[in-house]
């Protein structure tokens, strides 16, 4: 196996009774990088994280941390830092005692403990709060304490379970940037679980998209956004128009129009074409033969860009987003030519229904 995988998970499966929470999951988390496990709730991502930490026992599969197989090791032996969604701070201990806990149970000397606690409180900018109790801190401060506590015993990897999930939007944004800076400084391999695609795309070097216990795609943020491999990924990450049709000679036939990009699909099968609103290009009605014609239903402004609602010949709705400057000559009720060449087509037989498609 490659040496730059700090965490390696192979064929990991977890069943709770007859329910399969995690189904044959394999991936690597690269040394020194941030990897995100992204998926909607119930996709099994937290269970994967808890199995890596040893908090859940896998039904099948193997786990390595830094080339050391930990599948059957106890939680304590794995030496991982874990940050919980609801902080899980020890409420009867001060901030300093919380951070020192991992060192105290390893019987490190008081002097070393104090030094390390000081170092970490400096890092998370909470030195003045050392003697406070968790219930005297704000959510963001608590999460920083939790992070300092997890980092104190110098874990081999850092695992974060929805680390910003319990915080309000503004604090969330701040903490996200702060965590990014912190990671640049420490370089500790981090694996975090989130249902928030913005968080995953912004923070992670690599994203593992999960759905219904299975991995849908592994790739860089750019890859999962621009080259979705499954209909689920296409619909879940970013917003996308979904057009239903049937495959005809490498195209998806939507009404009387042909949307390209279905060469890999079987002739005549049901298919869906996904196209992002900003990938829909509008132009004057005549021209390109592959262009589809549509009528403008509504135009609304989103500030620096505008959203144009279109209706295709067969009644399906299409949303386009374009800079305000490109709006010239576009009027409600007029017909335009729509370029859908950047659409991605997927077979409809898949059970996974995409979420996050734009609302009409």
């Amino acid at each position, binding site marked *: 196996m490659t040496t730059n995988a700090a965490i390696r998970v192979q064929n990991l499966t977890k069943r709770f009774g007859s329910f399969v929470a995690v189904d044959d999951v394999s991936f690597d988390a690269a040394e020194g990088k941030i990897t995100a496990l992204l998926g909607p709730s119930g996709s099994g991502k937290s269970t994967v994280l808890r199995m890596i930490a040893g*908090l859940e026992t896998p039904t099948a599969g193997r786990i390595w941390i830094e080339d050391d197989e930990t599948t059957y090791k106890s939680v304590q032996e794995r030496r991982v830092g874990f940050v919980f969604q609801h902080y*899980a701070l020890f409420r009867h201990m001060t901030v300093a005692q919380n951070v020192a806990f991992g060192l105290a149970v390893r019987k490190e000397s008081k002097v070393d403990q104090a030094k390390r606690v000081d170092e970490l409180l400096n890092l998370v900018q909470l030195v003045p709060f050392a003697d406070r109790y968790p219930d005297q801190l704000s959510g963001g401060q608590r999460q920083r304490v939790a992070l300092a506590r997890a980092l104190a015993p110098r874990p081999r990897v850092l695992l974060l379970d929805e680390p910003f999930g319990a915080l309000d939007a503004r604090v969330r944004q701040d903490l996200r940037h702060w965590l990014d800076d912190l990671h640049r400084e420490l370089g500790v391999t981090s694996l975090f679980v989130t249902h928030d695609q913005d968080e995953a795309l912004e923070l992670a070097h690599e994203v593992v998209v999960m759905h219904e216990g299975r991995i849908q795609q592994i790739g860089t943020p750019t890859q999962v956004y621009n080259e979705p491999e499954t209909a689920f990924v296409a619909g879940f990450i970013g917003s996308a128009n979904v057009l239903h049709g049937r495959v005809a000679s490498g195209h998806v036939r939507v009404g009387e129009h042909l949307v390209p990009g279905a060469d890999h699909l079987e002739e005549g099968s049901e298919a869906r074409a996904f196209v992002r609103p900003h990938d829909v290009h509008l132009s004057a009605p005549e021209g390109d033969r592959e262009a589809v014609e549509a009528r403008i239903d509504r135009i609304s402004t989103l500030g620096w860009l505008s959203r144009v609602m279109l209706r295709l010949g067969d009644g399906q709705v299409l949303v386009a987003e374009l800079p305000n400057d490109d709006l010239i000559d576009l009027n409600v009720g007029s017909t335009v030519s729509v370029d859908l060449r950047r659409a991605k087509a997927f077979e409809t037989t898949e059970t996974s229904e995409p979420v996050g498609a734009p609302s009409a």
Partner: protein
Amino acid sequence: MSVATEPPRMIDITPGSADMRRRERRRRLVRGGVVALCLLYLTFLLLAPLVGIVLSAFAKGLPMVVETFKTPNVQHAFLLTFQIAVVTLVVTTLLGAVTAWVLVRHRFVGRRVMNALVELPLAMSPVTVGLACVLLFGRGGWFEQWFTARGIQIMWALPSMTLVTIFICIPFIIRSVAPVLEELGTEEEDAARTLGASTMQTLFRVILPNIRWGLFYGIALTTARAIGEIGAVLLVSGTLKGKTETATIYILYAFEERLDTQGYIVALTLATISVVMLGVIEISKRRKIREVMG
């Protein structure tokens, strides 16, 4: 034909108006009445007997009090009560805490039944408990032969008296610790383990400090009950004077033997311990609530 309806009288709701003052007066009167009723009720039922015991205990002066405490039978009765209470506390605290943990943290077949069974001693009359003990360990009982063959005296001695007290006190620790454990959740335990804490370290550094007031509350309740228990203990004690006579049993027989004052003195001592326990219970209850609220 028309029915003349009187227009509803308008009530002047401006603060301080005659109407509002009248309402306020009436409200105050009702509230005052309820408070007075409660006070009266508590005075007669709680305070009066307590005052009575204090007065009767000191009726023959302080020397009599000292004299009573010097009586071997009284001393032995207190010793017995103390022994039973200590053993009961140790057993119910250890097993109760473990049982609470199992009931809260584990899901197993029969958990709900066990959860309900735990409260059985509260619903059962202590006399029934004593009777059951006699059936098991008394002459011809299921376990009698086994113990007698090994020369172990269970009935009419300390073991049976302790056994029934333990049975009666089972629910207190479990019922005061379980909700605190439930509220605590497993995240802190998980966090401790990921930080390298062993099971014992997790127990002593994380779980116990978090449930200490709940545990304390249960201990206080158990102590009060163990000291005050009479029904079951009486049935299995055989009431051998100076041998199997606990403080409560001593009080019972003091009156039959016209040792009223001695009876009152012992009763007052038990009452004092109860009041102290009540204080402990009150304090730990408040802390426990804070524990639960986080």
